[in-house]
């Protein structure tokens, strides 16, 4: 399927999702759906660097929080519409991703992973000590109840849901376009054998920087509307462990080699978690995610998509 066709198909799918939400007139759907879509973006973004290039980012929360705090900063300074905040958040996170990549990507993959952890903590410490955006006390973001979109007044949460839906489509289309492009082939060689990739003429450092930047930017864009969603932003929720572990678990459980894996992982795990948080407790829900991650990594390293592919290949050979 050509990329242009895929884009149209995804937009249609998104419109269908939207139509569905209109049919079920329940605002809760928007609240829960927003979170799941957010994870779709985070998982897809993580996978561009982690799944395609093989470089693990433990600090997804940092890029997400950067986007969120950029919004808080502007909220206190000069009000800007959220779509623009998303762009700015994306740019800020992208630049930080580029910078961090430049410092650490020339080293081994394991050093990069550790550096991402370090980055998350450094950023968190900086934010905690920066009173303008609330510091450790947090920042309140007042949001209106409704907003005018195309002449209609819709609930604000539906507006946020829409934005996140668009971002999710953009993230998935980006991932798929990359996957099938020359860039995607280059990423795969980095994952398979970086030394051989260099010998074959692949500019590995440049490609890794591109991956880090795109990945970071998407995560930042996902974080930008978050303060408006949650109303009160403080460092421990923005930098929460839930983001770091979900951003890794969802692609690894779904399958890291294609754009489908993170989507499936996010939809599945995201929905399960929404249900679990309400019925059991949020701590148990995180525990489940952690256990699933370890289980899948040991038993089914290629994720759900990998299992399906295995089944298909076995059928072919019969």
């Amino acid at each position, binding site marked *: 399927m050509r990329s242009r066709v895929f884009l149209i198909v995804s937009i249609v799918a998104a419109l269908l999702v939207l139509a569905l939400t209109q049919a079920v007139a329940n605002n809760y759907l928007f609240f829960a759906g927003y979170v799941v879509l957010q994870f779709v973006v985070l998982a897809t973004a993580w996978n561009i660097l*982690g799944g395609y290039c*093989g470089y*693990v980012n*433990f600090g997804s929360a940092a890029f997400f929080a950067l986007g969120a705090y950029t919004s808080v900063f502007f909220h206190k300074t000069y009000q800007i519409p959220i779509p623009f905040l998303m762009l700015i958040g994306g740019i800020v996170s992208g630049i930080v991703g580029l910078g*961090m990549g430049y*410092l*650490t990507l020339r*080293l081994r*993959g*394991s*050093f990069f*992973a*550790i*550096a991402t*952890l*370090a*980055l998350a*903590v*450094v950023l*968190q*410490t*900086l934010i*905690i*000590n920066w009173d303008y955006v609330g510091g*450790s006390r947090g920042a309140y973001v007042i949001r209106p109840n409704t907003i005018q979109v195309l002449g209609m007044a819709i609930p604000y949460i539906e507006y946020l849901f829409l934005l996140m839906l668009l971002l999710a489509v953009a993230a998935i289309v980006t991932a798929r376009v990359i996957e099938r492009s020359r860039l995607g082939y280059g990423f795969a060689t980095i*994952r398979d054998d970086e030394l051989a990739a260099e010998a074959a003429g692949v500019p590995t450092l440049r490609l890794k920087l591109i991956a880090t930047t795109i990945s970071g930017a998407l995560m930042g864009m996902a974080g930008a509307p978050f303060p408006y969603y949650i109303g009160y932003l403080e460092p421990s929720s923005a930098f929460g*462990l839930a983001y770091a*572990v979900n951003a*890794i*678990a969802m692609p*690894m459980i779904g399958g*890291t080699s294609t754009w489908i894996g993170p989507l499936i992982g996010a939809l599945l795990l995201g929905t399960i978690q929404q249900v679990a948080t309400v019925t059991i407790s949020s*701590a*148990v829900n*995180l*525990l489940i*995610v*952690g*256990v699933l*991650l*370890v289980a899948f*990594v*040991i038993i089914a*390293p290629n994720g759900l998509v990998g299992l399906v592919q295995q089944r298909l290949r076995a059928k072919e050979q019969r």
Partner: protein
Amino acid sequence: MDFPIELLINAIIAGILLGGFYIAVTVGISISFGMLDIVNIAHPAFIILGSYLVYIVNSTFGIDPVLVGILMLPVFYVLGAAVYQVYYLSFEKRGQEALRGLAFFFGILFITEVGLILVFGVDYRYAEAPYIGPALRFAFVDLPYRMLIPCVISLLLLAALQLYFSRTFIGRAIKAVSQDQQALALMAANPIKIKRIAFGISIATAALAGAFLVIIQPVEPSVGREYIGRVFAICVLGGLGSLPGTVVGAMLLGVVESITATFYGPSWAPAVAFGFLLLTLAFRPAGLLGR
């Protein structure tokens, strides 16, 4: 201007004592990451686990925390060997340790932290012992016993390990396996078994480090994560796999953190370690002592 020299000297001394404790925390990673090339970012989780176990025994039976730590050494050794076995069979053997091994340890780190939250909640826990509280005084210099004792024992632990790695057969085999696995196999030593022993030792040190931790400060489940940066910063600073390097890195970090906390406030302390780590990785990844 009245430069607070007494404050500075106390900060430096406190930093040295802290550095001693950091040695115990880091030596396990020096072994697993420095010698075996296993990125066990879950190491702080094992330390915190150790802290909580020490806390339970200490508060239930009143046994001295350091003693509990020593008693737990064999338990943690077995735990470490078991974890390595799973790691080896799932990842090393299949050659997939890069991505999946990291995710595996991250999962363990995560499960441990959340598990502890579920069992113990987020309240701070601390151990009780007669030496937690009183301090030795030399003029204006304060040497709290709760810092002094872990520091001294850490240095002893390091010396013992250094002897082990240079004098015993298995110890030297462990050092050899980090250089050349094939050569080791030719020597009719089983590299997998050697690595398992080494990793077991690495996790065993976490038991002791955990005991020290709960003596030095109150613990709660997320404390482990603060140590990830410190541990790797020290390792990289001191040069991977070098035990003497660990001392240098630990002391340096301890002193800088202590001075930062004294003059700029404790909320900046985590950034110090991680900032160090980022800078070292960026500019001198071979460490100060280089390899």
